[in-house]
């Protein structure tokens, strides 16, 4: 029994990162109707950013967030201007296809770049507190992972507040709802797009840092994280960032439960099966509007 509980706790801990990974994708998809399949590669780059800061300058990986996230925001804005601004000029049907294509090209290039810069090896960031464990009854909770869950939740709440109260947050939401109407009311839709994409990339950077400190990073993790984020986006639906976070935790728990029941390799499959079922039964997601 305690083994199962332990598994479920670990599932919740990784689920928070699934949720954070998905909020960035959900924001971009919801606002721009652009499906960025290179989102996982952006997460991977964020992870290597933290790895570099730790390996070269000895920066603590949690402190690295303060550098990685602004850098990712900037990188996101550059990616938007360089690539995705061409995609949003097309009408909505063509946007999805074009963004898939550009995303694949980008994913391929970023993956190759990462192999070139950091080799294909798996990297982790060891810290003095890496092995610390919090004991609750029979349960052992890794402190680092608990911290990543807390930060992921904090960032999601911050994003939710930003979208609810900030002037441009409201503009982003209005654009997501109906960009033509937003345009008519005088909202600079293009700027809302840049902001949404930059924020999405910034969140990917944060997620990558947290993934690397709690687990590890390698150039090949991109597709896996894109899929996780996609699953969560579909599971939770568009429109609510906290809903997306909860969706991530649900996925983490479901994976852990299935791994405990059927064995490790099947954890991926159960997540995907849930995903397809939700997609077919409730295409708008559990929390979608």
């Amino acid at each position, binding site marked *: 029994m305690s083994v199962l509980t332990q598994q479920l706790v670990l599932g919740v801990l990784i689920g928070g990162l699934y949720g954070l990974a998905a909020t960035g994708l959900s924001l971009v*998809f919801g606002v721009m*109707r652009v*499906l960025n399949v290179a989102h996982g590669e952006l997460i991977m780059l964020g992870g290597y950013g933290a790895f570099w800061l730790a390996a070269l300058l000895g920066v603590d990986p949690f402190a690295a967030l303060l550098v990685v996230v602004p850098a990712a925001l900037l990188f996101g804005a550059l990616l938007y201007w360089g*690539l995705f601004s*061409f995609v949003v000029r*097309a009408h*909505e*049907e*063509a946007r*999805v*296809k*074009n963004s*898939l*294509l*550009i995303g*694949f*090209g*980008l*994913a*391929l*290039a*970023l*993956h*190759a*770049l990462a192999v*070139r810069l950091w080799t294909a090896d798996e990297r982790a960031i060891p810290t003095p507190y890496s092995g610390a464990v919090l004991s609750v009854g029979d349960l052992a909770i890794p402190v680092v992972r608990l911290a990543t869950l807390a930060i992921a939740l904090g960032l999601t709440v911050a994003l939710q507040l930003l979208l609810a109260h900030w002037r441009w947050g409201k503009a982003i939401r209005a654009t997501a709802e109906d960009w033509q109407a937003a345009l008519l009311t005088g909202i600079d839709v293009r700027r809302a797009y840049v902001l949404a994409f930059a924020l999405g990339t910034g969140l990917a950077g944060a997620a990558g840092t947290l993934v690397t400190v709690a687990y590890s990073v390698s150039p090949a993790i991109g*597709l896996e994280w894109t*899929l996780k984020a*996609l*699953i969560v986006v*579909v599971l939770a639906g568009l429109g609510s960032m906290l809903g997306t976070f909860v969706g991530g935790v649900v996925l983490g728990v479901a994976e852990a439960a299935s791994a405990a029941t059927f064995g490790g*390799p*099947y954890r*991926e*499959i159960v997540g*995907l*099966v849930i*995903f*397809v079922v939700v*997609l*077919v039964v409730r*295409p708008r997601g559990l929390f979608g509007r």
Partner: protein
Amino acid sequence: MTAAGRERRWAVVVLAGLALLALLPLARPRDDVLNFVFLVLLSITLAEAWNIVAGYAGQVNLGHAAFFGIGALVTRMLWMEGVPVLAAMVAGAVTATVFALVIGAAAFRLRGAYFAIGTLALGEILRTTVGTVLPEISTLPAATIAGYRLTLRYYLALGLAAISVVAVAMLATSRLGLGMRAIREDEEAAEASGVGTLALKLIALALSTALAGLAGGLFAYYHISYYPAHGFGPQWTFDALLMTFIGGVGTLQGPVFGAVLYVVLKEYLALHWVDIHLLIFGALFVAIVLLLPGGLVQGVERVRGMLGRRG
């Protein structure tokens, strides 16, 4: 010229090219040349198959690899059990198609991006399952390796490429193809004007997956040893997608040009820029999508238009 006339003319051109390639083994080329052309031919089949669903019926299917993988898996298993390879390939294609029809009935409830990510997940489900159930590498027995004939595989690939081109040409010039294009342009409008959209989408998917299953079967017949999960890898989907879009989606000749350019470019870059070839390749691909959204076919038309105006 009408669209149907253009498709027919291109079909003749492509088939003539394939007929020329039939003479290649007579010149006794090196094995690497035959292997290279084999790869091009397999790619043409895979891309044309994907083009039927995406280019004509307008549905971006990211689960293409699943059907290629099923074809490969079934063919390999039956063939190793002693079933003649052609029969095994047909069985593989039929299995892929049946699976596609079952899946399609549910998946086609999804529209646009949701269809794309739903089918992507489906492919990944199969890849992980197969990788878990059959983790062992599949290698041909020594006796079969001793009797391995590359030329035979080459001609099978040639025949398969020809079949896929003919299939797309017939589809493109038929009422079915017209209905599929109507769905691609505007699904609601097509439905409202009496096009049976679900049935047509299923037909497109069935045709596409039958060809993908055959291509997978050929892959299983061609490779001496491979991991069964490899046939389900997402790269088969992405390759087909990239080749089709580089060439020109929704045209008969586009995927053919795309496949040739894609394979040649990838091999060339891999040979000359070993470390960074995928980086260049990815960047180049993004550039093509941004600058030539209609692919090479559109590029050629644009150049021709400019020349025509001058002349």
